[in-house]
């Protein structure tokens, strides 16, 4: 039973597989993002209450969703590398962190920009945005911990534990922030009030969400491939690949 698991976790096999997958993923990302953005920006009528600023939803919501999913991917990869000590999982975890942090930051910035024209303040203490802010702090924690260790293998295992503890806490954090938000319900500044946006306007959102997920995969594969080459430098296949690469 362990045969396939072992084969799948070999960096070389992953490098070859990702090489074949990347072009298709890149095309999928480009198509969905361009179509979704064009549809959302150009063709959908403005929201009767929020005007045109609601169009930012098409990038804000996917960024927040993928950032959260990215943290879960990081935690799972960390768990795999901790339990079975698979190098590949450690690399995937290490590469998830910067991408996830960037997407979380993007969600915060687009959220702030969206808040200004709609509610007149750059920062809205809405339940969703506050949770994304805490998620951003979790990412910063993992990045800072990884940099603090000299021995990178220990750094990987420490970050795996932190990511797991964080992942266990994310539902509690999201739920407690929702509870906190409903407790201090200010005037109905409801950010996440998609329900108030007409459903037909949300269709482009599906496209952009798919686009952001596949973008995450593309960027992650690119980072992981670099990491594989770096860590497997003493192997014959990497050497042949690099030296062959130089002729091109």
């Amino acid at each position, binding site marked *: 039973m362990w045969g396939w698991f072992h084969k799948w976790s070999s960096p070389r096999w992953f490098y070859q597989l990702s090489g074949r997958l990347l072009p298709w993923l890149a095309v999928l990302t480009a198509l969905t993002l361009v179509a979704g953005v064009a549809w959302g920006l150009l063709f*959908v009528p403005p929201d009767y209450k929020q005007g045109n600023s609601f169009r930012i939803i098409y990038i804000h919501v996917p960024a927040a969703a993928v950032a959260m999913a990215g943290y879960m991917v990081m935690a799972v990869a960390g768990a795999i590398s901790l339990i079975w000590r698979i190098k590949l999982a450690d690399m995937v975890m290490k590469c998830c962190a910067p991408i996830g942090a960037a997407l979380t930051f993007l969600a915060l910035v*687009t959220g702030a920009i969206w808040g200004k024209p709609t509610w007149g303040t750059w920062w809205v203490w809405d339940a969703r945005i506050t949770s994304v802010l805490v998620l951003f702090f979790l990412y910063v924690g993992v990045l800072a911990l990884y940099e603090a260790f000299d021995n990178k293998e220990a750094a990987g295992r420490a970050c795996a534990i932190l990511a797991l503890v964080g992942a266990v806490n994310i539902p509690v954090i999201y739920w407690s922030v929702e509870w906190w938000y409903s407790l201090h319900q200010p005037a109905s500044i409801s950010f996440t009030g998609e329900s108030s946006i007409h459903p037909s306007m949300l269709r482009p959102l599906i496209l952009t969400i798919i686009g952001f997920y596949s973008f995450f995969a593309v960027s992650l594969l690119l980072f992981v491939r*670099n990491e594989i080459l*770096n860590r497997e*430098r003493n192997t014959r296949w990497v050497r042949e690949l690099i030296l062959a690469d130089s002729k091109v």
Partner: protein
Amino acid sequence: MYFNNIQELWAMAGHGPFVWAAYGITLATLLALLWVPLRTRQQQSRNLRAYYRRLNASATSLTDGEN
């Protein structure tokens, strides 16, 4: 298209600057998340080539790396 001309699209009834700023920052971030790995890939192959040259000089063996 909902907007009749480019000026209307750009202005977006006053919300244009915000919408375009948000989309601009998103585009920049996504491009950065693609450009950084591609950039390090080139630097890395340069470093690894130099590393292999040093390796040749001291002629140590390579593992087959099949694990």
